[in-house]
């Protein structure tokens, strides 16, 4: 829509006001992480000088770097696991014309209706039974089968030219080779969308790591933040905010860099769902 100069001004005013309000909690967390306790008490908005001591203190109080590494390992594992499992499943549903594939697709999609929390008690008992508490596999394997991922990839695979598949088969190109050397390269945008989605949701996961971790070896950053809160009765807020900032900055950077992929993934889920 083309708009007048007056409208333009109005839009910029609204945009700026909304941005300030929206981003305020994050900005305030960053500012608070640079303040002294006294400055927090008096309700200052800006620190008199930038103090980075809070960050060193935050890293000393809870092993956030170790937790960050754990989160990274778990998120990457889930991301790769989801991509492989979903790719194979979607490939079978789209390219292998066996009987009952539509039923299986429907069955997989119907699990999107099951809230994860409805299965968490037996899943927890399974993990305990397997002796997988405090392990990376216990934290990541339950999330490999992502029905949404199969849905997303199936929609995309259906748009790939079918003739290509047929001629490749005639020339003796195996299915797995076809998947790896044609389907996957042609689906990179969709796969990266799925990857970003899987990575972010795993990184931000809270309840499952809370249940299945009891020591610092495998804990994730999200649980680290909870620990900072619980540690002292007289919470040192600038230090806690420093911890929040340490956790927040990598995800926000990752989000800003991958926003395009994520939007594409969420959109194709929304418009066809």
């Amino acid at each position, binding site marked *: *829509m083309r*708009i007048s100069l007056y409208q*333009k001004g109005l*839009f910029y005013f609204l*945009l700026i006001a*909304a*941005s300030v309000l929206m*981003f305020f*909690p*994050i900005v*305030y967390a960053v500012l608070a992480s640079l303040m002294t306790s006294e400055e*927090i008490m008096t309700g200052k908005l800006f620190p008199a000088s930038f103090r980075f001591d809070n960050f060193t203190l935050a890293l000393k109080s809870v092993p956030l770097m170790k937790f960050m590494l754990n989160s990274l390992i778990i998120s990457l594992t889930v991301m790769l696991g989801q991509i492989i*499992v*979903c790719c*194979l*499943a979607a490939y*079978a549903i789209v390219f*292998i014309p*066996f*009987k*009952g594939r539509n039923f*299986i697709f429907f069955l997989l999609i119907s699990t999107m*209706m*099951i*809230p994860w*929390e*409805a*299965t*968490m*008690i*037996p899943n*927890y008992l399974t993990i305990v039974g397997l002796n997988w508490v405090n392990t990376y596999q216990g934290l990541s394997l*339950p999330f*490999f*089968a992502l029905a949404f991922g199969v849905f997303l990839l199936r929609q995309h695979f259906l748009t790939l030219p079918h003739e290509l598949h047929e001629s490749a*088969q005639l020339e003796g190109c*195996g*299915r*797995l080779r076809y998947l790896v050397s044609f389907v996957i390269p042609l689906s990179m945008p969709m796969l990266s969308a799925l990857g970003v989605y899987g990575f*972010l949701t795993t990184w931000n996961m*809270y309840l499952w790591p*809370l*249940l299945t971790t009891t020591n610092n070896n495998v804990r994730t*950053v*999200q649980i680290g933040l*909870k620990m900072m*809160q619980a540690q002292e009765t007289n919470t040192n*807020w600038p230090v*806690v905010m420093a*911890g*929040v900032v340490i956790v*927040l900055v990598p995800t*926000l950077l990752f*989000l800003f860099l991958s*926003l395009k992929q994520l939007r594409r993934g*969420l*959109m194709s889920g*929304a*418009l066809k*769902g």
Partner: protein
Amino acid sequence: MSPIGKDLPRNKDSGLRLLTVGLLYLSPMLIFMLVFTFYPMLKTLYYSFYTTNAHGIPVLFVGLDNYIQLFQSDSFLTSLRGTFLYVLYTVPLGVAIAFFLAIISSERLRGIQFFRVIFSSTIGVSVAAGSMIFLFLFHPSIGFLNHVLDWIGLAPIHWLTNPKWALISVAATSVWMGIGFNYIILLGGIQGIPEDMYESAKIDGAGYWVRLFRITLPMVSPTLFFVIIVTVIHSFQSFGQIDILTKGGPAESTNLIVYSIYQNAFIHYKFGIASAQAIILFLIVLIATIIQFKVGEKKVHYQ
């Protein structure tokens, strides 16, 4: 996995062979689904008819007693009422704000990309990080919100410990954290509207508001509906913000359904009751999803 089908001419692709190959490719998916979705879902249903000991082993079949007990307990009814109230607080407001942001940032203006990134940003804020920031903002004596109240001469509010305010405060936190996701989808919906619809409306002399209400709103309504349903489902599943902000208190006013499941199962080791609650949660989500499908079918007609 072995190179199935390699060097085999197509005429050997019999039905049985295709089925085997197909299932082989699907097997990782199906195995994970079986172990971590289908089996536990049935197991939850099974547990909901039993009382269990501390190790989660069912000891006594009680039929529907767990359900009856739940619907007769004030605690569960409070939790259910709180959950529905919370959904009512978060969904309309959260979707409305995201929609407003999507509308003002769908114009082609210089630097619009910057605003779009800002409005999407909360999708990168984890529940734990977002809740910690709000825990700080809500702090009764040093929190920023009460500093603001102080500046304008109002009495401080105990945001998280006053039963009147706690649920609203938790809901406000959730609204803020949910904006990014809703915004991204709604903006995509608005951008999917063909430009020429606006052009022809403009030739007909339609002003900004007419275009907004006659074109944008109807065209984006399927997306809007999708966002509402997803937000409703998501709201029913809220946990982290409650665990960090209020732990279900004060006076159980924020003891929403998933938090209540967590407490019953993992604090009190009442797996039977907790499983019955989980089944009720499942049914609520199921109903929300069915509504989405029903209305989703209709949307195909007018496009």
